[in-house]
Each structure stands twice: as C-alpha cells, then as structure tokens.
C-alpha cells in the first residue's frame, strides 16, 4: 500500500522524562517511519529523597533519567528502533548503555527547522548527542534523509505528554 519505500520492521523511539511534584516519570513512544504509533510505555514516578540528592550529587538527574527510567523503558519495550530521540538532555547518558544513537532535540522547539521549500533543509534538526558518540548526529541525519521529509521530530513529544496525562487520569501505573 505504500508508494514510498521506507525501512521496515524498525521505527523511531521518542523518550521524554517529566519532572513533576511526585517525581520523575518517563514516557516512551515507538513510531514507524510515518509517525504512527507502534508501542507506548510509561513508567511509574521516581521520587528521590534527600539522601539520594546528597549521595548522587550532580549525577542524580542523569542516573534517574537515563540509567533508571530510560533504560528500563527501552528494555521492556519490544519494538526495535533505529534511533532514540529525546527532549531531555539528561537522557543522553542512555547512549552509554545502548547500541543505537540517542540524540536530543531542543525541548522548547524554538530551534525546530522552519518549514522551507527546500526539503533537505527542512530535515536539518539541531540535534545534540553524547560527547562520547560524536557521530550520532550525522548518523541520525543520514537516516532521516531516507524518511519522509514531513516528519516533525518534536511533535511526538506532544502526544507522549498527552498520553501520560491521560494514563495518569485513568490511574495507570497506580494500579500495582
């Protein structure tokens, strides 16, 4: 049914971490290359206490976002991805534990590529990657070149946040 060949069987992962009063909560959406949802997973809230803050110091946020929530979400998700996008800088450390590129988008969307008549230009997102994997951005950009140019990398995060809000309203993750 498709006209434009696109990579099959693997998709794109979008991981965000919300930090609210009750702690850190993660949401992970896997889409296909047409941005349609394939799998969605969310985490319980993680609330560090004062001792954690003292003991983990400056590494606390990275530990919670990448090692704890991010890694768990991805390990539990069955759908494979070719790259993981996040709007949370602290998640980049996740790359240390994965073999797929992890890149970060600006969370405010202010630097999203403006719509342009040049399709190539429209795909140049201002991505950042882990300092130990400087090639990730280029790899992801190369992959995006083969994907639909209309793909908006920032938009799925809106969906994730809305879905997390919906899940919380309906009591998901508080049932166990």
């Amino acid at each position, binding site marked *: *049914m498709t006209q434009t060949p*696109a990579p099959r069987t693997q998709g794109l992962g979008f991981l965000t971490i919300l930090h609210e009063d009750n702690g850190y909560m993660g949401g992970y959406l896997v889409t296909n290359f047409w941005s349609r949802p394939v799998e969605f997973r969310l985490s319980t809230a993680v609330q560090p206490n004062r001792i954690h803050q003292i003991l983990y110091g400056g590494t606390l946020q990275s530990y919670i976002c990448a090692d704890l929530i991010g890694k768990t979400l991805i390990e*539990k998700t069955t759908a494979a991805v070719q790259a993981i996008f996040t709007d949370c800088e602290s998640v980049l450390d996740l790359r240390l534990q994965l073999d797929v590129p992890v890149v970060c988008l600006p969370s405010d969307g202010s630097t999203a590529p403006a719509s342009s008549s040049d399709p190539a230009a429209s795909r140049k997102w201002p991505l950042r990657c882990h300092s130990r994997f400087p090639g990730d951005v280029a790899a992801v950009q190369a992959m995006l070149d083969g994907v639909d140019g209309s793909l908006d990398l920032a938009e799925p995060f809106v969906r994730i946040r*809305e*879905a997390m809000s919906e899940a919380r309203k309906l009591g998901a993750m508080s049932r166990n």
Partner: protein
Amino acid sequence: MSQDKHLPAPDVAELDLTLSVEAYLPQRWDRATQVGIRPTRLLTERPWVRSLGRLDMHVKTEGWRFPTPPSDEPASRQGDSGQQGQETRAERCEGESCGLSPPLPLSPSPYLSAVNLRLRPTKDTVVLKERLLYLLQPPLESCLASKQVRLPLRPYPYQMEGIAFLMPRHAALLADEMGLGKTAQAVLALRLLFHAGLVRRSLIVCPKPLVSNWARELRLWADDLPFEVVGGDAQERSSCWLVSNCPLKLVNYELLTRDAALLADERIAFDVVILDEAQRIKNRDAKTAQVVRGIRRERSWALTGTPIENKPEDLVNLFAFVDPGRIPPDTPAKRLPHLTGDCILRRTKDDVLTDLPAKTIRDAYLELTPAQRQSYALAENEGVVHLNSLGETITIQHVFELVMRLKQICNFDPLTGHSAKLERLLADLTEIAESGRKALVFSQWVQPLEILAGALEPFGPLQFHGRIPDRERQTVLERFRSDSSKHVLLMSYGAGSVGLNLQFTNYVFLFDRWWNPAVEDQAINRAHRIGQRQPVFVTRFVTQETIEGRIAEVLDRKRQLFNELLEQNSPPPSLGLTEEEIFGLFDLQVRPKRCAA
C-alpha cells in the same frame, strides 16, 4: 581658715576583724573507698551503623502495543493481499466510466497547517489502550502531508474535522448537508485507518446508481487502497464474499440484500461497514435494513444528508445499525439528541462553505393555461364530490389519488397537452442554452419527462430516470457533462436525487414538487455542491390556486421545523405530509373512521 576651727570631732567605731573557722567532716569520708569496673569494647568489633533507608530506586513500567501498520508488515504478506486486491479491482472496474464529474478544484481555504488537528477518543471509550491508541496518532495534517498519503486535492478544514470525527468512532452518523463531500471524508478516514493498521477489511454499501461514483471517489482519494465491486452472478459474488482477500468491497443495496444468505456465513466480517445514503434503512422491518443490521462488523458508519426524512423513527432506525442499543425502546423524541449527539456530525453549507457560490431559490407562480384550468376545475370538483360520497369509508389513498391526478394536470393538460410550466421552461432554457450553460429538470413522474424530452428537443435533452437502463446511465451523465450541445438533463427524483455530482450545471428546475423537502434538497444539491464555481439558480414551479400551492405552503413549514431539529437539538418533527395534512388539502366534509397510517 578661722571657720575650720569650729568643726565637730568625727565619730570612731570599732570593728571586729577576727575570722572564725569551722571544720566539718565530709559525709562520705568515713566510707571505705570502692573500685568500679566497666567493660569497654575493643576495636576488633564492627562499628555500629545507622541505616538511612534504601538508596536504590525502583521503577515499574506499563506498556501497550498497537496494531501493526501495513507498511511495517513483512513484504510478502503485504504484497500478497495488495496484489490480489489490485487485480480484482482492475477486473471489476474495467469498462466503467468513472469520470462522472470534473475533478474538484483546489480549495481556496487554508489547509489547517497551523492547527494540529488530532484524533480524540470518544466519550464512551473507556479502555485505556483504546484511548491511548487515538491520542498517540499523529496529527491529521501530518498524515495527509506525508509521502505515504498522496492527495490530488486539499480537503477543506471542515472535511478534516469530519475525518477526525469518523476515525475514532465505532458508531458514527455523518449527516452533512448534501454536497459537502461526505464520500471524500469517509474515504479518507477509511484510508488513514488502513494505514494505521486499525482496519483490514471493510465494506461500503451504496445505492446502485452510485457504485461508479464511489469507485471514482476511491480512486481519487485513496489510490493506494485496493477495492473490488461485488457483482456478477451468484457464483462470482459468492467467491467475492468468501474467497477474495481484497480489503475493501463495494456493493449496492440490492445485491447485498440478495446475498443475505451468504452474509450469514461467519467468515464474512468487517472492521468497518459504511452505509451511503443510509436513509435507505429508515424502515426497520424492510429486508434491506435487516440484512444490513445482520452484517458482522466492528465499526458502523452511516452517511446521509437527510437522517430524518419523515419522522423521528427514521433516526431511531438508523441507529439500529449505527449503534444497536444506544436508543432504548420507546425513547421519547426529545431524548434523541441527548442520546445520539456524540455520534452525529452535521454541518450545513452555510456553516462551512462561506465561499461556495450562492444558491438562489425562487418560486415561479404560474397561471394554468385555460385548457389546464378547465380540466383542473372539473377534476377537483368531481374528485371532492367523490370523496365526500365515500363517507366514513374514505381512506388516505382515496385522497392521495385525487392529489396525484390534480398534480398531473398542473403539469400538462391531459386533453390538449398544454402546459404553463412548459411554456416557462422553454423561455428559461432558451436563455440558458444561449449562455452555454446547462440545467437539470426534476419531476416525480417519468411520463412528463418523456413529454418534455420531445418538447425541449432544441436543447439536446437527455433523460435519467427509472426507464433508462443502468448500463446506459453513466454514458448519459458523461454525455451531459462533455457534450456542449446537451443543455438539459431530465431527471426523476427517484433516480437522480442522490449521490450524483453535477456541479457543472447552474440551473435546477423542479417541474413538480416532491412530497418531502429533504428529497427536493437532495435534487437541488446535485448542482449546488463542492466544486460549483457559479451561482446556482433553483426554480420551483408552482401553479397558482391549485393543489400545488397548498402543498408548497405545508412543505415550507416543514422545512423550517427540520432546520430547528438538527441545528437546535429540538425534538425531531415529521417532515412529510401527515394524514391530517393531506386531508386538509381539500375542504372535505368527511373524515375516515380510522385512518390508515
């Protein structure tokens, strides 16, 4: 110095400066000295530790896997079904002329690029996974802008809203006014559901004359969606229902009813069933309605511009398909809007097509020719006398026969063939033809259309009604569209009032009036619909001081009530003429003992 000698001598006091010392014996001094012993731990033991609680943090997750979009499925599986479907379509649709109407123009309206129109789960979607499924779908704009979905035209913003309405609904009634593109909205919604992997088998049921129209719309709006038209002899149809893997089947109501026994097979089930012109099932006990309700399906979508043609029960019976059980038996009419509101979407042209050319409706009040007047007066007098003579045995059918007889005289005098309407029509058509435009003429009978065909010969009349074989109808429409010498199409309300796209015509004549304003609207909207670029002029012929004028008055009142129902959520009125109203057309002295319904 002399004064100092007189001062008194100072007083002298003696102070005791001796210190007394006392010695006391301490209280415990007399006790013997004791030695205490206290054990002390050596550093060879582990130090005491205070716990600060658990420092490891735990996280749990919950996840949902959604249906796999077909584009992500293994190539072999996808290719198999797709190939099969394409071949079937080619075979079935070969020879059909689908150029029924010109391509719709690009909408001048903005393409909602600035607004992210998202799918929303319905109020009665309670399962979290289903709610998340729709919340996590990408915005419609990005779906339709992607390379995966190539569109020949930009949908209007209200059509995007219609698609967003349909997609998450398992029970939906799209009741847009005629001409707003319900077909396109349904096709696009269906296509996106296929792409999302939420639908794999679907069925579209439509009136027979509209099958080719649907085929054309499917090619236009969903060129990647294989479909097949159910047809042929019983064996072919059986194969189509039971063997074919084509994901989308298109069938007309008549064949569907004929294949009722086949449809009882448990292997036949659909993710979506779409009923076009769904008012066809307004009679709950009709075979068609029963067969349609019996189809195994997950989603039920009904499309109609006239969800209520005559009475509130029409809507109730529609919902017997759309969502069985939503309307409990004996529900008062005033409760219907509350019960059905979330499942119905209705927009009018006035609401959404502010840039659609104007539609001007004018009533042409005509004097009967002398010959017609004479015949009319005779027939009415004799008819009323006859009705009165029936006494209490009179039925509504008796009155009905007289009404029909009089209406026919209003069209043509039975003796001379004179017609005030024809005279006026000839004058108007002359002007229309000279300006190179085209007109539709509607009548409820075939006979007047055939007479008109002869009288309007200079204007190249074509006919489209029940006596025109189905196989020729498409050719008639195509000729009317493409042949510049064909200025007028003579149509019966029954054959030409629904589903056809004739927006290249600008004039509509209602040679005689139908009983129901909704049907008249359907006819008028063949021309006044999306794609129309010129104003549409509708002329309704009404002969003065006749039964037509009296009927027109009643219908106008009905039309007003209809608008109130769907626009203001007031209780549904009855749109057709009631028994009382039909009797009221004549000044009868008698009334039946018990009127037929």
